[in-house]
């Protein structure tokens, strides 16, 4: 697939950067609802990744038409 034509797939690389570099998020503070940062940050990336995937999905669908 030509990345120039389908640049939006790069959006899917974001979760990898966000999650595969633990020094970014391996800490306790700031806490949220009693959850240390390490935990709520990762849980947050579930809906964030879903949103990114939906965005790419929509773009892909539009491009196919």
């Amino acid at each position, binding site marked *: 697939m030509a990345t120039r034509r389908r640049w939006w797939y790069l959006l899917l690389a974001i979760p990898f950067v966000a999650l595969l570099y633990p*020094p970014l998020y391996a800490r306790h503070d700031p806490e949220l609802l009693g959850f240390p940062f*390490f*935990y709520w940050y990762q849980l947050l990336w579930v809906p964030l990744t879903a949103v990114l995937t939906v965005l790419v999905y929509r773009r892909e669908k539009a491009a196919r038409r």
Partner: protein
Amino acid sequence: MTAVTVAHDTEAATLAVFLVLFLAVTVVGFVAARWRRASLDNLDEWGLGGRRFGGVITWFLLGGDLYTAYTFVAVPALVFGVGAQGFFALPYTILVYPLVFVALPRLWTVAHRKGYVTPADFVRGRFGSRSLATAVALTGLLATMPYIALQLVGIQVVLGTMGIEGDWPLILAFVILAAYTYQSGLRAPALIAVVKDVLIYATIIVAIVYIPSKLGGFGAIFDRAGDALSQKDPPGALVPGTTDAQVAYATLALGSAMALFLYPHALTASLSADRAETLRRNAAVLPAYSFLLGLIALLGYMAIAAQITPSTPNYAVPDLFASMFPAWFTGVAFAAVAIGALVPAAVMSIAAANLFTRNLWREYVNPDMTDAQESQVAKIVSLGVKVGALAFILLLPTEYAIDLQLLGGVWILQTLPSVALGLYTRLHRYALLAGWAAGMLVGTAMAIDQDFKSSVYPLDLFGLHVNAYEAIFALAANLIVALIGTAACRALNVPDGEDATTDEDYVERDAQAAPLPATPGQEDRAGRFGRAVRQT
């Protein structure tokens, strides 16, 4: 506060609810054969449900298939035992979906076009190499078998917490599972997955609200867990503090994410979808299960905070449920786990049977099999695989199954260059085979060197110290050998295999937007595949 030891007595309410739900699911399993009725005498129908599962069913099947009873027991057990490291399951399952979104529709399309049922089918066609396909098939089989056995551990654990010891309940559960899988094929776990997921979601949502309210809130849970973990020997941690721990965490997540869809059962569930589009849509929505898994992992901390002292870490969550929930709801929770073992066990045994039938039996024993014969052999093999897994758990220490499953995860990742990269680029077949062998060797050696106690290996090489997931090291060795080998083979003009696929085979056409027609078209495709195998 004193430690809480949960007595494993048989509570009538718990057992009654459990049995009712289990019975309901058994009925569903048998009735499933009538759903989207078609002749189950060919492998496409029995082994892939006719490739007609739409968005909703695919979501349940994939979720039910990927999130196994063992996952629900082992992930919190790991968090209970060591803390933060066990949480890698969350980033792992988050990162699976972008990979799925990109690669899986491509595999679906070429599999649909050429009648491929297993990853080894694809490798056979793409690289024209019998030995590489066999290597992929064997790896898939070896990785799947212990996984099936471990689902039984999940059932054993909940039965044990209900005070039911002994082998016969397990045997009974498996006989029932074997019977309706034989009859209904992939349709059975697809429908049961719906029931299972409803139960799991209900259980976890209740647990995540009710249990913290009894324990003083999440802040208190994390505090108490952190304290308890730091007092262990070796000390656990709420957050991975050292570079070693962090590299291990990241590589465990990445390696597991890359490996998940290489497992035959994940591919079987995926290839049963009615169109590539279904897989994309699901990749966007399946993350709901990841969130669920994150919450399930936290149950491990809740067990620590509740001062549960299980006989083994695997009992942490069942004990927690038994001590916190009213008896009847404990029955619901346990049914969720037990049924959660049936779905993946069924799909895994079907996937293993598909592999054996297509890529070993048809390839080496009977190339002229009819569709009916294929389906028949697969049914018998699926049965045999379950019997084997049962025997394994009943006769050998559970430790062996756990060790083999750890190895299985390392092994299956070694099929990535041929199955996943093969969707985009063709490395040389001999180089791929050598790479596979190198990966298998490195991974297995590392696991043995750790006495199977850890899937993380502290490697000291060229003055560097890297503490990472064994499967990643193995994959690195694999890729290096495959790339260098490809360059060498091409330079020496070593003959490569024929590619039975063309570039168009990977591209979805508008014609694919519609769901598939009825069986005759599929039989034709399966027949064409058989003839293609004989010609090469």
